[in-house]
C-alpha cells in the first residue's frame, strides 16, 4: 500500500481539501494562513510523489524529474508569503483594531 502512488495522492488531496475548507470557513487570518500552508504542502506531497513513482516526466538533460526542486521553490514562496502576509495583518490590526477578514471588504464593487 505504501508502495502505490494513489495512497500518497489521496493523502495529498485530503490535506488540500482540509486547507481549502479551512480557508473558506475561518475568519481569523492567522488560521487562514495555516490553511494556505496546508494546501501548499499538499501540493508538495503531490510533487514528490510524482517524482518518485513515475519515469514519464524526465527532468532537463535526462536526469531525474524536477519535482523535488519545486518543493523547495514552494517552501521559499511560502516563507516569503508568510513574511509579507503577517506584515499586512499587523498593519491592518494597527489601523482597524481587528483582524476579522469579513470586515475587510472595502474592495467590493
Amino acid at each position, binding site marked *: 500500500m505504501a508502495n502505490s502512488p494513489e495512497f500518497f495522492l489521496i493523502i495529498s488531496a485530503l490535506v488540500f481539501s482540509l486547507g*481549502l475548507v479551512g*480557508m*473558506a470557513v475561518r475568519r481569523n487570518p492567522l488560521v*487562514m494562513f495555516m490553511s494556505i500552508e496546508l494546501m501548499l504542502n499538499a501540493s508538495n506531497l503531490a510533487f514528490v510523489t510524482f517524482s518518485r513513482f513515475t519515469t514519464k516526466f524526465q527532468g532537463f538533460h535526462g536526469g531525474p524529474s524536477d519535482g523535488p526542486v519545486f518543493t523547495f521553490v514552494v517552501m521559499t514562496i511560502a516563507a516569503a508569503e508568510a513574511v509579507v502576509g503577517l506584515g499586512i495583518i499587523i498593519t491592518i490590526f494597527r489601523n482597524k483594531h481587528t483582524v476579522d*477578514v*469579513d470586515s475587510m*471588504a472595502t*474592495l*467590493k*464593487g
Partner: protein
Amino acid sequence: MTENFDPMVLTLLLPILGALVVGVAGRQLGKTGSAFVASAAVGCSFLIVLSTVIRKLTGNPVPENIKLWDWAALPTTPPTTISFGLYVDSLSLTLMSVITGVGFLIHWFSSEYMEHDPDVPRFFTLLNIFIAAMTFLVLADNYATLIIGWGGVGFASFGLIGFWREKPSAAAASKKAFVMNVIGDIGLMVAVFALVKYAGTVDYTTLFKEVLPGLTNNGQATGWLTVVTLGLMVGAYAKSAQLPLHTWLPDAMEGPTPVSALIHAATMVTAGVYLLVRSYMFLELVPALATAIGYLGVVTALFAACCAMVQTDLKRVLAYSTMSQLGYMFLAVGVGAYGAAVFHLVTHAFFKALLFLTAGIVIHAAHGEQDMRKLGGLGRQMPATAVMFAVGSLALAGFPLTAGFFSKEAILHAAHHHPGGTPLFVIGALVAVMTAFYTGRAFFLTFLGPSKIEHPHLPGAPTTASCAVLMLLSLGAGSIHPDFQAFLDPSMTNHAFAIEPGATSGAAIGLSVAVVVAIAIAFAMFGKGDRDPLGGESPPLVGVRNGAGFDPFYAFFTRAFSALGGLTARGSDHFLQETLPSFVGRSFGSLSLVLGQIHSGQVRHYLLVITACVTTLLIFSLVMRGGV
C-alpha cells in the same frame, strides 16, 4: 560666390541682427536701448546703401549680382539652381535708399512717439524685421527668393497693424491685411511655378539677358508669359492695394502711426510697383496686360480719390491718398514710364511719410482724436507741425516746384504721349485736381478755424527733427529728376526711356493752375475750419466713406465660409467630439457598475468561485480525455 565681401550684404544683416538683439534682449535694453539699437541698425544700413550709391554714381553703374550660395536645385534640363544672392542695380539701390533712409527717420521718430507704450521692444523688433524683409525683397536676385522678402513684409505688416492686439478692430484689420496679402502671394507663387516650368529659371540676370530677349526677337507672345505676368500682377495688386484687392489698406490705419508711415505709405505698398518695374520686360511682351495695368491704375486713383474726399478720419484720408498715388504709379507702369513710376515712388515715400508722421504728431497733440471734424485750429497752437503738414500736403497735391509736382507731372506727361493714353491722361489730371482738393480739405479742417483741442501735447526734438528732414526732401527731391533718370537707366537694359523733364510743357502749366485753383476752392469751402459739407452723415456720403461696397462684397465670402464652419462645428464636429466620445465613456461606466456588483470583497467568495471554476475545468478536461 564673390571673392570680396560686398558691403551690401551688411544692409541685409544689420536689420536682422537688430531684430534679434531687440527681440531677445529687449527687456534688458529697456525702451531707450531698444529704440537705439533698432534705429542704429537701420541707420548703418542706410549709410552703407548711400556709400554704394555714391560708388555707382562715380564709378561703374553696371548691375552687380552678388551670388552668396545655391539655395535649391531646379529639376530642369539642363539642371539649374536657385541662388541665394543679391542683385544690386540702380533700381534696387533706389528702393534701398528709400527703405533704409525713410525707415531710419521713422525709427528715430518712433523712439519718441512710442515711448509711452508698454511694449516698445516688440514694436522695434517688428520694425527691424520689416526692414530686413523689405531689404531682401528688393535685393533678391531671383523671383523665388523674392518671395521670402515678400512674405516677410506681409508678416511684419500683420504684426504691426495688430500691434495694439487688445483692440478688436486692430486684430481684425491685421487679419484682413494678411488674407489679402496671401492672395497676392499665391499669384506670385503661380508666376514662379510657371517660370520654373516654362522658362527653366527664375534668375533675373538669366531671364532678362537671355530668355526674354530671345522671345522678343521671335515676336511671339506665348501663353505662359501671360500666366507669369498675371501672377505678378495679382501679387503686385494685393501688396500695393490696387483695385480690387485694396480693402485692407484703409483698415491698416489701426496700427500705430509710424507704422502707417513706414509700411502702409512709404515702403511696403510700393513693393508691387517695384515688382512690376523689375518685371517690365514681361509687360512689354504682353502689351494687353500692360494696358490693363494702366487703366486699372487710373481707376484705382480715381476711386481712392473719391473715397478720400469724404473721409472724416485724418489717417484714412492719407490711406486713400496713398492708394490713389499708387494708382498713379501703376498708371505709369502701364504706359511704360517706369522711370516716372519709380520717381513718383521715391517722392511719394518722402511726402507721405512726412504727412503720416505729422498726422501722428497731431493725433498725439489731440489726445488720440483722429476725426477731422473734431480737430481744428491747431495751426496757431503748433505752427511748426502745421508748416510741415502743409509742405507734405502741397507735395501730395502736386503744387508747383514741390517734389510731388515733378513726379506726378512726369507720369501725366508720359500718359499724354502714350499711344491711346488720352483717357488715362484726362482721368489722371482729374484725379490730380481731386487730390489737391481733398488734401486742402484735410489741412484746413485740421489746422485752421477755431481751436477745438485744449492743451495740445507738443512734439519733442526727435519727432520734429525727423519730420523736418522729410520736409526738406519733399520740397527738394524734385530737382534730382533728370539725373535720376540717368541713374536708373542701366537697370533697364532693353528699354529706351524717352522722358524729357517736362516742367515747361503745357500740361505742367495746366496742372499747376488746376492744382492752385483746387486748393483755393478747398480753402473757400473749409478755410474757416468749422464747416464740413463732406463730413455729413447722409447715406451716399457714408457709403463712399466706407469704401463703396467692397467690404460687404468680400464679407459675403467670409460670411459664407463662417456659415460653413458653423455648420460643421454644430453638426459633425459636435457629434464626433462631444456626443460620440461621451456615449462611449458613459456606456463603459454603466457596464462597470453592473460588473462591479459581482465583487463582494469577501475572500471566501472569491475562493469558492476559484475552486468551483478550477474543479469544473478539471472535470471537464478529464471527461474530454475520456478518462475517469
